[in-house]
């Protein structure tokens, strides 16, 4: 009997744990910020011309998302409702300035490649929407998981785009040549138009997968 109760509480405990792992998983796949929610498109298209740029941008965004989620959720009972959006933007801008200086300290070259788009993380709708829709209503622990999940999902999507564009447009991956020398690069993939096309094709793949699951 005692064993049974213990088992039951153990089972219940895992059930209660489930929602929190769910907060993490949902950002990776089901609610992927880029492929499903179509949020934060500007940096996705602009800096995904090489895999390295895409990864760096993803990590910087994850950092800002995580830190602002933590701060917003811990201050959620102190921020008056009327000025909440302004306060969120101030919090985000502070962390973006930090990220800007950190990247500058690590690699000037990368900082030049990303250019103004590091500062433009401030107006990434993904971060503001997580602050408003999630962090302002949930505990710090949950917000950390949500921020991490969404950030990693965003980085994953950016990497998908960056890898494809670099592979086809430059014939290399992470700067290492991939194809034999006689490979003719698809210059269009590096150009802005290539960003639109690659993202459209990824969205198509996601849509097709979703439809297939719905019919079976």
């Amino acid at each position: 009997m005692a064993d049974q109760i213990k088992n039951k509480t153990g089972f219940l405990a895992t059930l209660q744990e489930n929602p929190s792992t769910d907060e993490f998983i949902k950002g990776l796949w089901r609610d992927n910020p880029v492929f499903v929610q179509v949020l934060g498109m500007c940096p996705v298209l602009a800096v995904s011309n090489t895999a390295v740029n895409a990864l760096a941008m993803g990590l910087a965004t994850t950092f800002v998302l995580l830190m602002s989620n933590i701060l917003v959720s811990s201050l959620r009972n102190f921020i008056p409702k009327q000025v909440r959006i302004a306060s969120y933007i101030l919090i985000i801008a502070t962390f973006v300035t930090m990220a800007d200086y950190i990247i500058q300290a690590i690699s000037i070259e990368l900082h030049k490649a990303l250019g103004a788009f590091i500062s433009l993380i401030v107006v990434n709708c993904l971060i503001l929407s997580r602050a408003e829709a999630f962090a302002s209503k949930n505990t710090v622990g949950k917000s950390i998981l949500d921020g991490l999940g969404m950030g990693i999902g965003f980085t994953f999507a950016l990497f998908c785009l960056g890898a494809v564009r670099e592979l086809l447009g430059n014939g290399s991956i992470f700067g290492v040549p991939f194809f034999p020398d006689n490979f003719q690069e698809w210059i269009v993939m590096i150009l802005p138009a290539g960003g639109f096309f690659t993202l459209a094709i990824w969205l198509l793949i996601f849509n097709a997968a979703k439809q297939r699951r719905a019919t079976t």
Partner: protein
Amino acid sequence: MKEESLWYIFINASLINNFVLAYFLGICPFLGVSGKMETATKMGGAVTFVMLISSMCAYAIHALLSAIHAEFLQLISFIVVIASTVQLVEMFIKKMSPALFRALGIFLPLITTNCAILGLALFQTSKGYGFFESLVYALGAGAGFTLALVLIAGLREQLEFADVPGVVKGTALTLLVAGILSLSFMGFAGLGS
């Protein structure tokens, strides 16, 4: 920095380096509001107006911050100024023309998170433009944004009646159209030389 004529700055910002199709700035309203021709033009007008005002403010802030050596505050002050400008424009339009206010609806406050406006402020300071150059740059960027928005809205209105496979409908189709539009805008690159 070489001197650029005001005319060149305008053409550069509106056609050669179009903010939407070459720099990918302001994609969110570009995808969201471009369904109908009417809202697209109005949105373009509102964004151009906010761009002009915030470009003037950004010029003043940059001058002030470099005078007191506090450049690290640049980003935070820009975003605060843009947010308050949008708020001001919103109140102004509400008072002067309630009809236009209702037509723009939710998209008015959303201008705050339009990256094109913050991008404009950042680009003009990094290029070291003076007061009039900044104004012309803002005007060109606004015109380019409106042009791209109107073009895509027109295309999407036509596509409503096309027989498109279900998988492609929605954002993916808009992105494909935008990609083709972006390719054709690259033809303007020759104008610069």
